[in-house]
């Protein structure tokens, strides 16, 4: 019986991986020229790869600390002169090392844990309090970093697709080497998700979902990858895929899954074909269908532990609010893009007016004003990118993740249902046995007794499963909440740093203009 292995204490308790922010790992190949990104499209460079350092860092830890203590580099578009302005901000901001504080040296034996014993470990340890769970999580850390980079269009026409470079750096012995790279396409990521969902969600894990399919987006890309909206689409997807993978590898039990290892390591991956259905809408439908099934249950669960009920309600409310916020931030992004356009148009108009002006000094000042407004347009563009890639995408990620979390609550309900159904079947079998006893049919009686034994075992099994799933869900939720708080914190700091930089540059532009205005005579 599987249940017996529950009682073996695992080598280490449940863990978490800190630093789940989107860009913990610098891309060592940043000096590789990529045609798509050769235009300094502020949309992509400025924001999504903030920690790009140009030389290979000696090891992961020092590189990360370097990145977080130099906010000047945190936005890809900066000029050297900005460093002076940053002197003050620098001092204040460098005390924060988002994500690095929890990183610890990895113990050598952590790689040996098989997945199954891990997920059963909470039951084995029988942690009595949530505080103990939290404490245990804080002790462990993983040393795996993944990056998704270098999107490249492969093929032509409608069969074309985008291949991404997936680079892994690790010190875990279970991988074939310390650093390796493979090429993967979007359907591969979806395939991984499907495999994981089938296996792991049964146990109550929160499986991070990948970004949605987009027929419109991809069709444009198939036609040509050079126009701004295609560039934005590819960059958005690349960043989302990277975050997706980072979340997967930072999940202790998912990391142990052989499918994950295969995804990261194997040269050629068999093409995932069943991914056709999994668009954004498809994913939501799947989740909601599960919820509906649960709602239609005839036997209503009597929740002895209100924690689950309360938490589920919280999750639902939060998801709703996040959706609202996401829509608002989207509106903000659009208005900022509008401001961009309006500013550019105004700048041109001002330049024309300057040309028309017959007073020399005023004409010059108006032309300078036009130039300042041009620079403002650039700033607004970068801010819009920051609004979108940092803030809006953060919200989108968590809307998806909360959906996944609802999914794992449903898994627990299903486990409960299975247990209840087994109990009712057992009851029926017992009644049947009683009837047989009364009717005095000894040959059928033995069969009935055997069936009862079988179902008794099942009931025990399912009860244990239900408890175990419950424990896992609790742990997962806790871990998720911690990760979320860290994630939000680091993303918000990044967002603010980008905004600050923008303001600093704005000041410089107008300060340069002021003497021009004063020179008018």
């Amino acid at each position, binding site marked *: 019986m599987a249940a017996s292995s529950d009682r073996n204490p695992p080598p280490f308790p449940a863990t978490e991986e800190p630093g789940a922010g989107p860009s913990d790992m610098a891309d060592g190949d940043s000096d590789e020229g990529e045609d798509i990104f050769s235009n300094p499209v502020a949309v992509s460079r400025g924001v999504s790869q903030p920690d790009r350092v140009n030389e290979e860092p000696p090891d992961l830890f020092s590189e990360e600390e370097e990145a977080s203590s130099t906010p000047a580099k945190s936005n890809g578009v900066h000029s050297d002169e900005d460093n002076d302005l940053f002197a003050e901000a620098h001092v204040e*901001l460098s005390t924060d090392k988002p994500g690095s504080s929890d990183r610890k040296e990895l113990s050598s034996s952590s790689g040996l844990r098989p997945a199954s014993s891990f997920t059963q470990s909470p039951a084995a340890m029988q942690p009595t309090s949530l505080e103990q769970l939290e404490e245990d999580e804080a002790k462990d850390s993983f040393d795996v970093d993944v990056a998704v980079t270098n999107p490249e269009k492969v093929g032509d026409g409608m069969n074309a697709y985008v291949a991404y470079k997936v680079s892994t750096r690790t010190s875990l012995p279970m991988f074939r080497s310390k650093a390796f790279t493979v090429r993967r396409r979007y359907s591969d990521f979806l395939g991984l998700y499907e495999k994981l969902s089938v296996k792991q969600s049964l146990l109550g894990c929160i499986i991070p979902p990948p970004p949605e399919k987009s027929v419109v987006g991809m069709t444009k890309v198939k036609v040509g990858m050079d126009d701004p909206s295609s560039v934005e689409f590819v960059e958005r997807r690349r960043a989302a895929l990277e975050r997706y993978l980072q979340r997967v590898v930072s999940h202790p039990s998912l990391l142990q899954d052989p499918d994950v290892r295969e995804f990261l390591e194997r040269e050629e991956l068999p093409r995932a074909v069943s991914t056709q259905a999994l668009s954004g809408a498809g994913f939501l439908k799947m989740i909601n269908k599960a919820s509906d099934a649960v709602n239609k249950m005839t036997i209503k669960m009597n929740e002895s532990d209100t924690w689950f009920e309360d938490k589920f309600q919280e999750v639902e409310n939060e998801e709703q609010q996040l959706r609202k916020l996401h829509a608002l931030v989207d509106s903000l992004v659009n208005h900022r893009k509008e401001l961009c356009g309006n500013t550019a148009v105004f700048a041109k108009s001002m330049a024309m007016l300057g040309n028309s002006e017959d007073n020399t000094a005023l004409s010059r000042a108006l032309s300078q004003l036009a130039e300042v407004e041009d620079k403002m347009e650039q700033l607004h563009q970068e801010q819009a990118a920051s609004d979108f890639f940092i803030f809006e995408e953060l919200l989108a990620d968590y809307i998806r993740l909360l959906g996944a979390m609802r999914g794992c609550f449903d898994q627990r309900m299903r486990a409960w249902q299975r247990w209840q159904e087994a109990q009712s079947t057992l009851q029926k079998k017992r009644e049947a046995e009683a009837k047989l006893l009364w009717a005095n049919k000894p040959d059928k009686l033995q069969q009935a007794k055997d069936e009862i034994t079988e179902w008794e075992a099942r009931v025990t099994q399912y009860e244990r499963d239900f408890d175990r799933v419950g424990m896992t869900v609790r742990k997962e939720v806790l871990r998720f909440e911690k990760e979320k708080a860290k994630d939000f914190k680091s993303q918000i700091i990044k967002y603010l740093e980008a905004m600050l930089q923008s303001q600093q540059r704005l000041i410089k532009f107008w*300060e340069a203009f002021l003497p021009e205005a004063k020179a008018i005579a």
Partner: protein
Amino acid sequence: YTFKSVVPHGNSRDTMRSVSVDLNHDASLLIDIPDALCERDKVKFTVHTKTTLSSFQKPEFSVPRQHEDFIWLHDTLVETEDYAGLIIPPAPPKPDFESPREKMHKLGEGEATMTKDEYTKMKQELEAEYLAVFKKTVQVHEVFLQRLSSHPTLSKDRNFQIFLEYDQDLSVRRKNAKEMFGGFFKNMVKSADEVLISGIKEVDDFFEQEKTFLLDYYSKIKDSTAKAEKMTRAHKNIADDYIHVSATLNSLSADDSTANKKHLEKLADLFEKLRKVEGRVASDQELKLTELLRYYMRDIQAAKDLLYRRARALADYENSNKALDKARLKSKDIPQAEEHQQHCLQKFDKLSESGKKELTSFKGRRVVAFRKNLIEMAELEIKHAKVSSTLQPTCVRLFVYS
């Protein structure tokens, strides 16, 4: 929605009086609009005069005036032949509360969908917008009067004096004026201008250059005004978005029981502070840039009107020459024709002389005003950005040490 407000008297209004400089410094005639009342979108201005001139009955007095009174004054000046050679200061535009009124209406409809806090903040923003429109209209009416009082000729106008002094309702006079002129002169000038401008052979280099310059400049500045307006509107939209984002972050934070709660709270607070800054950036840009462009667009139109009147006078003179030639040919009515021709020539010369003076001083005025406003706008942009750039590090520090 009724909005009642009184514009406060004081130094804060000096920053408003920016589109035209060097006005209202001649102590012999000082005019200002110290307060105004807005009731149901109808504005009543209090026009206050302080004077040492004996042509007025009292040294200091105030009268209530409506927008229509200003228009009456402007129109009578335009239709006065003696002033044909002057740039008549542009009439102040009608007070327009349409935009904030419409937004207030929409806000009322959407009240149920937002939190109380959100609604209050949106309402505050709208009230500020109302106030801004109000202040602008007061300013532009005031500047109109001050342009008149600082003009050597126009300040002596009899109707101007009546406007300032007459303590009864002007509406009777307004009706009479309409009957007398019927806006004929003005309409005629406007409709004929394109033909005149293109058809006339210019004799004077100065006016030839001015014509070319003003026509070109007018279309450019009109374009810039429209584009500046769009820019300001986008800023306002962003400020509004910040309100909603802040409110939703607060809701999320309130319901959050995890470590994320304080993160959301701090971010909500930041957005609230940012929207105030963004709002001020928008309104300062409106005042210093958009209003400046708008005002000079109208002023250039007034200068163009002067050119049209001169072109008309030139056309009249040329026609009178032709009439004289005809008279000489027919040997009939020669003295009348000669007299008419002389009259036309004198008129034309007078217009040209005064026109040249007016246009030259107009140039100077324009340059000075642009200088002042551009400097002020740059200074305000820097000031707001400095405020804004203290918000982010403060917020980040809160995060780090939380």
